[in-house]
């Protein structure tokens, strides 16, 4: 269960957050949501794929971390074996929430929430959030910045998806992986860029995508697919 509360330096003065990476802390994730502005960094480590969100049916890009539910192939004995952790994971257990403005008709304020039931939350172990006299720690400041970037990036995602769909650049793909041990695994329900369609687009369409800042992230997705091989190798090494 999650128990989201508004973070404050009175109730949460002594709270700490464990930053080690392990399955016990909720890191056994098959995929992590990402957003176009993060693609450049993500494609350095992970394949970027698209999947429909179960609640809205709308497309969402993900960094692929494993081949089945609960499998994160980057999670080893010594933590997360990659030099970059997707922001949507890094920020846990913090969330951004809206708070009604104190002024009538004012825009809602963006405030930090924390999930008190998250396994990272501790009273004795990990990074402190607040200093002795209530000031925020560097750790919390960094989380705050991360949440801002994540929030801005996520809200830019629908326009990117819209552009891909308008040019019919998404297509579903099925990956059949035969592992060294002979077992066959199928990755289904994911979508990727239709490269043939992309190559066939004329200058006007490419210009429009460029003007919408969609071109660079698009090619980042294509480049990221090379990591599917790494993912299979990681899986083979585990068996």
């Amino acid at each position, binding site marked *: 269960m999650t128990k989201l509360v508004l973070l404050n330096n009175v109730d949460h003065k002594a709270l700490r957050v464990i930053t080690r990476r392990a399955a016990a802390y909720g890191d056994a994730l098959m995929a992590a949501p990402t957003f176009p502005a993060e693609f450049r960094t993500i494609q350095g480590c992970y394949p970027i794929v698209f999947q429909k969100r179960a609640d809205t*049916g709308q497309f969402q890009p993900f960094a692929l971390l494993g081949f089945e539910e609960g499998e994160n192939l980057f999670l080893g004995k010594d933590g997360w074996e990659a030099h970059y952790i997707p922001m949507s994971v890094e920020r846990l257990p913090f969330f951004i929430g809206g708070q009604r403005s104190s002024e009538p008709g004012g825009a809602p304020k963006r405030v930090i929430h924390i999930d008190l039931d998250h396994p990272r939350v501790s009273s004795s172990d990990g990074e402190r959030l607040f200093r002795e006299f209530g000031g925020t720690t560097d750790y919390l400041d960094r989380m705050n910045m991360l949440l801002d970037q994540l929030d801005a990036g996520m809200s830019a995602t629908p326009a990117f998806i819209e552009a891909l769909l308008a040019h019919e650049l998404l297509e579903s793909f099925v990956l059949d992986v035969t592992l060294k041990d002979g077992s066959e695994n199928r990755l289904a329900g994911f979508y990727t860029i239709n490269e043939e369609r992309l190559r066939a687009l004329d200058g006007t369409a490419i210009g429009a995508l460029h003007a919408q800042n969609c071109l660079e992230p698009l090619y980042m997705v294509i480049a990221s697919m090379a990591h599917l091989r790494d993912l299979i190798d990681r899986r083979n090494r585990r068996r």
Partner: protein
Amino acid sequence: MSKQVKRVVIVGGGSAGWLTAGLIAADYRRDPASDGGSALELTLVESPAVGPIGVGEGTWPSMRDTLRRIGVSETDFIRECDASFKQGSKFVGWVDGGAADHYYHPFTLPQGYGEADLVAQWQRAHATMPYAELVCYQPRLCEHGRAPKQVTTPEYAAVANYAYHLDAVKIGQFLQRHCTTRLGVRHIVDHVTTIESAADGDIAALLTAAHGRIEGDLYIDCTGIASLLLGAHYAIPLLPVREVLFNDAALAVQVPYAQPDAPIASHTLSTAQSAGWIWDIGLQSRRGVGHVYSSAYTSDDAAAEALRSYVAASLAATGAPAEGTRMAEALTPRKLSFQPGYRQRFWHRNCVAVGLSAGFVEPLEASALALVEFSATMISEQLPATRELMDLVAARFNDAFRYRWERTIDFLKLHYVLSQRSDSAYWSDHRAPASQSARLTALLSLWRHHAPSRHDFHRIEEIFPAASYHFVLYGMGFRPEPQAGAHAAARAEGYFSEAAALGRSMLAGLPTNRALLEHLKTHRLQKI
């Protein structure tokens, strides 16, 4: 050289007219890249005064393919036509009229259909269980008010096979916008005053009050029951089927939901009455309910009374009983009379009838719009290049649709001949051997020993597949002679377990019909 067929004129703008226009226009849509001459010129003339009649609000799964071919988005269609998802029909009170009497005719085929003798194993080991509920997961989804797909399922794709319930007036308007703005169909709103004949008897032109002469090479009569071209102008007789299907009148009402969040059934409810039956169709914003009956066996007043008490009881079941009675009393049913039957020919000279102008019978299995789709598709695919070839195509069309009408009538009749109801002469007269076709009588004898199969229905595009006959036959209590031996029993049992397991996982994963429809008001289904 024989005259080319280049201009098609559709007369009538109801759901039949616009579905036909959409299907033909989409097929002949000019490739924007080529600048070749127009493939086909399509005009739809519609009288401003004639309103489309509001029956035929259920469809078949074929409608998904039809709409996709026409090129509309499923999300737009659902939003603009007050549409909802339909997974089949539930027949209540048809077998004996007892309290527990019901069965399903779902759209999904039995699990393992054609792979094992499901019927024999059902009879041998599960005879007390309803056939449809043993062999198919869909009745369970319907009982639980589930949608046939998820929010992540692409447009027109299904988890469980489905069709629609829709507002027949709105689909005409919806397709009109698409046909005129996207498919280049010319739309003329005017009265046709005169039908001008050529020397050879073809229709040469239509004269209109304000738009003068409209010429065509082929005229499609979508004028509804009036059948202005085929019936009135050409006097092609209607072959009456009242001796087989007695119903010739209907009273229809629109019923609001008792609460804004009341469940929306994802199946058509068809409840037998003493001289007819009541349809109950859940749209997004309201229910469409109607009593179709035989004027030879009951009066309009008695039929209206039966309709009111049905509506009151259905509202009482979900809301306050007093409120239900009050709402039911306030409804004013709209009456529709019809002569059940179909035209002796559908395509005559350069005129072909589609929709009610070709024929009409009670909407028991929602065949009206399906016949429109079949007709328009065949016209479009077989459209003769020249007038000379048209008579050959017409002969094939007439043969195909005479067969389809005969099969439709046999299939509807099947619902009546198997009933054990004895509460009125209406039901016992329906069982009189003279009231059914020789073909149906023969098939019923054969089916005592063999389940309906492709040997009984051998045309490529059968209107009702053998599986539909299974659902109705065994749902209605028909029991074939037991078969000797337990051939492949384990295989059939495997499929029964598969159906049950699929039912469980789908119940867990599918939203309710209402929840999905609410979701679609703010979110779109993806095209992929």
